[in-house]
């Protein structure tokens, strides 16, 4: 069994293969030169903690040894020979596989604008990116964040809490337009403004010039900002090149079936690099979410061993903004009906019901204990295909748990 890409999906898959009883070889190949580590803290604790933190590893080398997982660290797979069942590494080595799992993840989308030589501009995807950014967001530093999505806003919150002066540039008319309903995005916006982050919506960068060690960010609106650091958070691009080169089907990511197999039955996929059909939503989706990557890694491992069990977990995502949490479970569409549940000082929730009354999604922003609990019960309702009473759902005095029965 061979796994290409040692993020959370790949490392969980390697551990799961062993846990599920596979006795043969397990080879995990990762091009980063460290042990597999968590990405979510890169925009959060890694930027704010007093003492410079090391990467938060997902698995220790002792554990890898104990499970007899061969971890090829700092090695990159450059080609797959499907007929011969081998992969080729950048250094020319060839390794045979019986079944292959692609967990190549995604990379930060770079800006396509003109960037002057020497401008300090950085995306955030790896531990090294986080260290670079951490060292630059000192008190008083001028920071421009391009992109008002999750990562951009988390970085903005972290930088401002470190005493930097922060401006967020967002091309759309509002923040978090892709995944978060407007009323919640408003709350998040207000939280950022209260914390001292400046937001400029409806404009984007035209170019960045380097001026005496600083970066001049010129916006399409005509304004300009002088920054010590420009951080770009405009989304991620799935790493599909390897799969494409091997002739595997690609459709907004490496295209998988419900068993998480690619168009080659001996090659599977999991995590940010893949799209898959979801029974609940009748569409092909690609997620960029920590828990899904983990669950898919485990599910793909079982199916590589012949479990034949369709992947049906409900998407779930969280983001920390200051001391508040945002959580989204399920997927909602334009035509779904929103139901608002106002928890007062504890936060705000919005549930989405499909036309037939079934609950399909929920989002909440507020204090972690309150939001986590409501979202978890919403997830259970979605999983069971329930159609909760709208009145009860919108009434915070009704215990959400009671709607489960």
């Amino acid at each position, binding site marked *: 069994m061979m796994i290409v890409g040692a993020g959370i999906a790949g490392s969980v898959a390697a551990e799961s293969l062993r846990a599920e009883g596979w006795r043969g070889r397990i080879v995990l190949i990762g091009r980063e030169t460290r042990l597999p580590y968590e990405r979510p803290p890169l925009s959060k604790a890694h930027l704010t903690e007093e003492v410079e933190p090391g990467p938060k590893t997902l698995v220790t080398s002792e554990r890898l040894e104990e499970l007899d997982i061969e971890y090829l660290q700092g090695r990159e797979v450059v080609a797959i020979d499907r007929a011969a069942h081998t992969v080729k590494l950048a250094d020319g080595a060839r390794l045979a596989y019986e079944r292959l799992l692609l967990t190549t993840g995604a990379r930060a989308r770079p800006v396509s604008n003109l960037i002057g030589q020497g401008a300090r501009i950085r995306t955030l995807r790896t531990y090294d990116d986080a260290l670079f950014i951490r060292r630059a967001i000192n008190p008083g530093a001028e920071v421009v964040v391009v992109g008002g999505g999750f990562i951009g806003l988390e970085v903005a919150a972290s930088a401002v809490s470190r005493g930097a002066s922060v401006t967020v540039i967002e091309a759309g008319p509002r923040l978090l337009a892709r995944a978060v309903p407007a009323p919640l995005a408003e709350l998040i916006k207000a939280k950022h403004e209260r914390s001292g982050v400046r937001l400029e919506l409806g404009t984007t960068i035209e170019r960045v010039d380097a001026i005496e060690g600083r970066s001049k960010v010129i916006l399409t609106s005509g304004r300009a900002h002088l920054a010590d650091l420009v951080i770009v958070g405009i989304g991620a691009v799935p790493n599909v090149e390897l799969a494409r080169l091997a002739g595997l089907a690609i459709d907004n990511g490496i295209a998988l079936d419900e068993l998480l197999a690619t168009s080659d039955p001996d090659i599977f996929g999991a995590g940010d690099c893949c799209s898959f059909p979801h029974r609940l939503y009748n569409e092909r989706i690609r997620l960029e979410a920590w*828990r899904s990557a983990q669950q898919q890694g485990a599910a793909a491992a079982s199916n590589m061993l012949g479990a034949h069990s369709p992947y049906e977990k409900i998407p779930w995502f969280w983001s920390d903004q200051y001391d508040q949490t945002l959580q989204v479970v399920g997927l909602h569409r334009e035509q779904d009906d929103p139901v608002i549940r106002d928890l007062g000082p504890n936060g705000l929730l919005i549930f989405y019901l499909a036309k037939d009354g079934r609950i399909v999604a929920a989002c909440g922003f507020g204090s*972690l*204990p*309150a939001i*986590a*609990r409501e979202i*978890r*019960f919403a997830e259970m309702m979605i999983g069971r295909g329930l159609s909760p009473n709208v009145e009860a759902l919108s009434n915070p005095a009704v*215990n959400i*748990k009671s709607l489960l029965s």
Partner: protein
Amino acid sequence: MTITEEWVAACPVDAIEREEALRFDYGARTFVIVRSPEGTFHAMDGNCSHEKVHLAGGIVDGHIIECPKHFGTFDYRTGEACALPVCIDLRSYDVKVENNLVFIKL
């Protein structure tokens, strides 16, 4: 000096419904009090052993409490860690009910 154990009143019985949990702070310490589906009361250290996240925000399912952050689980009767990513057990405490109050032994 010997450390004496004491019974501390944590909450009224009707403050927690069945299969629910409540946070209880005492001095600098924090606990989670859980009422089982059968109606019995149990107490454990309040913070998850994975990260510092309070378990009272998690859901109770049978004899399991689930951490709200990464969904690790514990058997709240014993404090035993049951599902990854938690692997360190939490300490559980004796509980008694008197005069409609829940007491925990610290």
